[in-house]
């Protein structure tokens, strides 16, 4: 797990996108590639057989049939849908995507087929039944989704103490159940569907945002008008309302966009979708820059705390592993081996979501710091051990023969020499810890990468991700150079 997952997914999306944008795509005989955030009930999710099912799945399959093309559905996280659509990696995106002005600048939408509002979901019996009760409380949203935008705009009005941003429904619901968050703001149909069979949860309030959902496609592509026409037909045939009845238990009202044929939303001027405008957009960068800097601060705080406590822990473990009694040695060795092989992401989830059940509920920051420290400590312990073992035996004997005690032998003789040996591997570990802070986004920590992900969803443009990558480099490069200098300085004493 030393390679950061989120970095990887960024590269996986961005690099092929680069090549895709130069290749010919959208041939009418090819299958239609559809990106969907699987798990978004009841729109697109997996049934017990592992098949993709849901309102929008049935809709795109029908659209494909009408256009005489096969439909190829792939699972893309919500935040990846925008870059994937703009780069042509996918032909269309579904995931109850709300049509917004900003999104229309970089993509086309077919006419809407569902009118939605946001909703507040709470835990039954915790005394919160409306938005007014949430003053001073922590609420949760999905990163970059309509609920996120609404909550950010209305944070002051309702006095939410904090907005935590999650990647998907499941972790947010877990935290709502534990009581770590007091409310969850998200699309009302999904929440009604989800809460239907969960007596502990309740959709407490409808938040009128007036959003409507549709299929997102590449800006001004021929496919977008074709799909729009098919949707008109399907509405007239009553197909879409039948889907509504199937998935929501009742037909939609005649005035809603589920029934009525409406105009295709016109795209907005603004972004010309070439490579530079898509990935290196100056305006988007300037708009999202403050968010990224906030994220960077969180990343630095988390990184520095974890590195420092990991060093202390690692040193103690290394000394115990080398010099303690056999029983302690065994335990320490087991600790080191286990935490070097456990994926950090899993540990993070266990610490954050499982420990509350035994009464230990850590904030996202301290949960992330704990996970990073525990793993970093295991790695640094091995680095220190190797460093100490590289010190010649004669140094220990000379110290002992002089009568130096263990403490002075370590602090005056052995460790100062070991430090020089361990600085290069320790630096690599520090850099890894800083990159691994990005994994903290699974516990709703607003670190740099999380902020960038959110910014790219709001702006419907992947520039913030590139900017985040550049910030990581700018931030880590001096560290690398500084340590090289330090190494050279240390060498003088050995001359």
């Amino acid at each position, binding site marked *: 797990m030393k390679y950061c997952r989120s970095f990887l997914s960024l590269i996986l999306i961005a690099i092929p996108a680069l090549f895709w944008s130069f290749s010919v795509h959208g041939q009418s005989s090819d299958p239609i590639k559809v990106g969907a955030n699987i798990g978004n009930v009841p729109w697109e999710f997996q049934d017990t057989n592992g098949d993709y099912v849901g309102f929008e799945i049935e809709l795109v399959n029908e659209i494909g049939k009408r256009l005489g093309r096969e439909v190829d559905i792939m699972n893309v996280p919500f935040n990846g849908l925008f870059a994937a659509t703009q780069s042509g990696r996918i032909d269309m995106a579904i995931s109850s995507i709300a049509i917004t002005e900003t999104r229309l600048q970089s993509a086309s939408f077919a006419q809407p087929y569902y009118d939605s509002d946001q909703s507040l979901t709470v835990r039954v019996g915790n005394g919160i039944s409306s938005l007014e009760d949430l003053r001073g409380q922590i609420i949760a949203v999905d990163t970059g989704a309509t609920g996120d935008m609404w909550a950010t705009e209305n944070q002051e009005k309702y006095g939410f103490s904090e907005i935590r941003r999650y990647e998907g429904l499941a972790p947010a619901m877990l935290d709502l159940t534990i009581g770590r968050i007091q409310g969850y703001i998200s699309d009302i149909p999904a929440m009604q569907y989800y809460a239907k069979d969960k007596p502990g949860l309740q959709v407490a309030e409808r938040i009128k945002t007036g959003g409507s959902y549709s299929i997102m496609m590449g800006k001004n592509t021929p496919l977008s008008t074709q799909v729009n026409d098919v949707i008109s037909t399907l509405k007239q045939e009553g197909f879409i309302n039948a889907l509504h009845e199937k998935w929501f238990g009742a037909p939609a009202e005649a005035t809603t966009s589920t029934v009525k044929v409406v105009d295709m939303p016109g795209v907005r001027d603004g972004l010309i979708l070439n490579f530079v405008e898509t990935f290196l957009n100056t305006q988007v960068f300037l708009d999202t820059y403050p968010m990224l800097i906030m994220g960077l601060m969180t990343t630095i705080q988390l990184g520095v705390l974890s590195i420092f406590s990991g060093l202390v822990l690692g040193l103690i473990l290394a000394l115990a592993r080398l010099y303690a009694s056999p029983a302690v040695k065994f335990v320490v060795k087991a600790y080191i081996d286990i935490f070097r092989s456990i994926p950090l992401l899993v540990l993070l989830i266990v610490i954050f979501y499982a420990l509350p059940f035994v009464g230990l509920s850590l904030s996202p920051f301290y949960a992330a710091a704990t996970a990073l420290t525990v793993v970093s400590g295991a790695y640094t312990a091995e680095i220190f051990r190797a460093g100490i073992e590289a010190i010649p035996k004669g140094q220990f004997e000379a110290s002992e*023969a002089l009568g130096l005690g263990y403490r002075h032998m370590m602090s*005056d003789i052995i460790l100062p020499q070991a430090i020089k040996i361990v600085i290069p591997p320790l630096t690599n570990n520090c850099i890894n810890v800083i990159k691994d802070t990005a994994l903290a986004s699974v516990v709703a920590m607003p670190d740099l990468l999380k902020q960038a992900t959110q910014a790219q969803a709001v702006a419907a443009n992947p520039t913030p991700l590139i900017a985040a990558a550049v910030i990581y480099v700018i931030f880590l490069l001096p560290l690398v150079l500084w340590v090289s200098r330090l190494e050279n300085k240390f060498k003088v*004493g050995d001359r």
Partner: protein
Amino acid sequence: MTALIKLENVTKHYGNFQALKDVNLDVEEGEVVCVIGPSGSGKSTMIRCINLLEQYDNTGIITVDGIQVQKGKNLKNVRAEVGMVFQNFNLFPHLSILKNVMLAPMRIRGISKEDAKKRALELLNKVGIGEQADKFPAQLSGGQQQRVAIARALAMEPKVLLFDEPTSALDPEMVGEVLEVIQALAHSGVTMIVVTHEMGFARQVANRVIFMDEGQIVEQGSPSDIFDNPQEIRTQNFLKAVLNH
């Protein structure tokens, strides 16, 4: 009066190999003892048992100034009274020459930095490298490093100094300068046990010469006893081999 250093029935096993066999030895205060013998005869092992760098078998007893040498609270005190000079110098490479000498008195005797420095400079002058005090070990020649190591051991004002083949790792032209320093010390009345292959040096400075072979003390006596009139056949063979080559 009991001897300053006393070894009684000391044996040492490495697994099945017996490195020391029932060694008995008394060293009086002020005595200079040279230990000679072929490689692997247990010379180094014996003196390394005296400050417990090697753990001897629990059937024997070693005492220094009446205190038994064993693991525990007293070990640090014993070691502070027993200085050691190693074949490979074992200076601390990250510390200057001066700090190599200052460290132990400050940490163990608790003397002030100023006093430690003053004393260290005196000792470095005494071994002839006062001008190099601010250099690091790797900047000195082998002979100079070994003289620093002697000064470092002396800084603790030990009751006894152990030398473990102090010239064996040196280039031949540097052996003399180190032996001169040790010789001067011998004349100053410090108690010393010197494991050495330098027969001429042993004859000159020792009050007593011990010949060891196969983990045992085979023969001991004054330099003239051992070198001019060895009684044991093993001693005679050894001396014939080293003196005639």
